[in-house]
């Protein structure tokens, strides 16, 4: 589904990311881990064509993301709060995203009904603007909005950060279910090794902009990762 080839990004001559080859097949639950500055957010920003690659290209579907915008209808993402529109209520925001993705209001309502547990009565019908919600609740809105319109590719940067333990567990369930039909490709990044090994079928470790590990998740993975990061 996603093909990264010879991609690199340098700021003022300093390389922050350099990935020679990375293929993410359709339906994979893909996890990206690495310390601060390893290049996780840079990689996601490149995937979304928010920054310009210094070399190489990324294809999403069959489309080179920096050359055409045709990948947008089937791709969705939540990177940080700058993906939220502060002066809208959560409902208005969901409907707006629905409008952009060609999803009817009633369909959005249907989807939201399925997330009642996840929202924990703190999101819908609160008569609050998004800018007045707490960081955790904002994140919940962002994550759910990324699921509107059955996207084929979903990109979430640090989805577990700022969430309370209950919601983290619920989110893990949601993310695992998404890829069950092998139709949706999910890409997440995280600092929480346990969550990532629970959710992702494949984990790639970045260090200083380079891929240093590419693991198919199994029972030993968590140990392996812990060992790697405690070096």
């Amino acid at each position: 589904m996603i093909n990264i080839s010879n991609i690199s990004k340098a700021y003022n001559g300093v390389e922050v990311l350099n990935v020679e080859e990375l293929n993410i097949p359709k339906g994979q639950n893909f996890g990206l881990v690495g310390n601060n500055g390893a290049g996780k957010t840079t990689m996601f920003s490149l995937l979304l064509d928010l920054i310009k690659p210094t070399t190489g290209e990324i294809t999403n579907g069959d489309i080179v993301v920096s050359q055409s915008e045709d990948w947008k209808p089937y791709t969705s993402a939540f990177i940080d709060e700058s993906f939220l529109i502060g002066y809208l209520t959560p409902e208005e925001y969901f409907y707006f995203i629905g409008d952009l993705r060609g999803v009817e209001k009633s369909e959005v309502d249907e989807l939201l009904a399925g997330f009642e547990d996840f929202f924990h009565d703190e999101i819908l019908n609160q008569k609050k603007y998004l800018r007045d919600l707490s960081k955790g609740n904002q994140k919940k809105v962002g994550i759910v909005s990324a699921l509107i319109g059955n996207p084929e590719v979903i990109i979430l940067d640090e989805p577990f950060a700022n969430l309370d333990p209950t919601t983290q567990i619920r989110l893990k369930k949601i993310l695992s279910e998404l890829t069950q039909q092998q139709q949706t490709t999910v890409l997440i990044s995280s600092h929480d090794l346990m969550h990532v090994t629970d959710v992702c079928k494949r984990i790639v470790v970045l260090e200083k902009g380079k891929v240093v590990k590419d693991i198919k998740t199994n029972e030993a993975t968590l140990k392996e990762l812990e060992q790697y990061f405690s070096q």
Partner: protein
Amino acid sequence: MFKRFISLQWKQFRRSSYFEAAIAIKILMVLGILYFGGIAILSGVGGYFLLQKVFPEVDPLLTLNQFLIYWILFDLGLRYFIQQMPVINIKPLLIVPIKRKKVVQFLLGKTAISFFNILPLLFFIPFSITLIVKGYHPLYVIAWFLGILSLIFLNNFTVYLINKTNVYFILIVGLVLAFIGLQRYEIFDITTYAQVFFFGMYSQPIWVLLPVLLMILAFYANYQYYLQHFYIDGAISKKAEKVKALNLKFVDKFGKIAPFLKNDIKLILRNARPKQVLLTSFFFLFYGLFFFTMDVYKDSPALLAFASMFITGGFLLTFGQLVPSWDSEYYKLMMSQNVPYREYLKSKLVLMIFAVVVSTILSLPYLYFGWDIYKLILAGASFNIGLNSFITLYGGALNRVPVELNAKAKAFQNTNGFNVTQLLISLPKILGPIIIFFIPYYFISFNAGIITLALSGLLGLIFQNQFLNLIEKLYQKQKYKTIAAFDEKK
């Protein structure tokens, strides 16, 4: 300590993406500064002789002093709109061992180095020198100059005290209009009374103490205010606003652009900055009063054409110059979602055109000045709808200033969406209607000028697609730059 603040400020200025503008813009900036400075100095030197020529039997200093009151009020009104408290990021300073007094003192001191303070000095210094050369008593001239200097800084500090609410602004505008009206109908002439005071600063220098004291008072009031408000605004008792429910069903009729239009309407109604713009554009409606009432402009219809454009173009200009900056807070979302540029732009365009139409209707009272004037306003509206809208949107795309939507009255966090790039972009908007009107007016007739100006708007409608394509291309070309600029935290 001050040295460290200055170096911090310099770094913030030097390292902002705005500063790394294209070399061409930098050159134009320098030229602009030289131009305005040059004009000020020239009129400072030549002002004395000019006044002597226009009013031969009156002492030029007396004439100048007569009109200073209007200059003071006008200056205050202008500052009200444009001059903002310089932004300094106080959060990191709150918890380190620096005396708050120092920070506030630095902040207030920094306001002294402002375009608004320097420009009048460029006029008054050469003017005072001319006075001395012409044989006025040097000590008295210096006293008078000190008085003027105090008044400049009085305005400088007063504006920070009053720009938190709009009441004072309405008061100032009302005062100016009342004075002009009373003077025109010869009921009460403020200038003769003001003259006594202003000339008094020269003839009896003891008068100078008044503005000096007032200036010190204004400084102290500011100092107290900012010392007390030296906190992260709202961090302690953050109140969530009540949601204003809006029924925007009727917008659905606009089809594809409806989702954007709905958003834009909410954007304007629910955020402090756009509301400010709405109010500003309302004041543009009164712009004509300055021009149409003054005899000086009666014989220069080209300037009247310019004024007419302003009357209906308030919202178009002030809102349009910040497209796409209005969406800067969530620009990454817009760029990663399935957002067609065309629909996005058209939604803004619809709002701008709607505002022009409403302003045209609201400006019906200008019929009082005659049918010719209203024809000019209509032609100006046509220019606005057809051409100016596209010029403004194009300029807005070059602007790339992040806008904090809901920040207005927060003393330490106000961001300022006004800069020199904007000024330069506005040149075609200002000169456009003048040139389009003037050429046929000069060679054929007044009506020919009006018809040409009106037809220029039609041009925009015919080439709408081409114009939109052009702006779209600019958006695409600048995409990464814009994202990076909007990402910059203030």
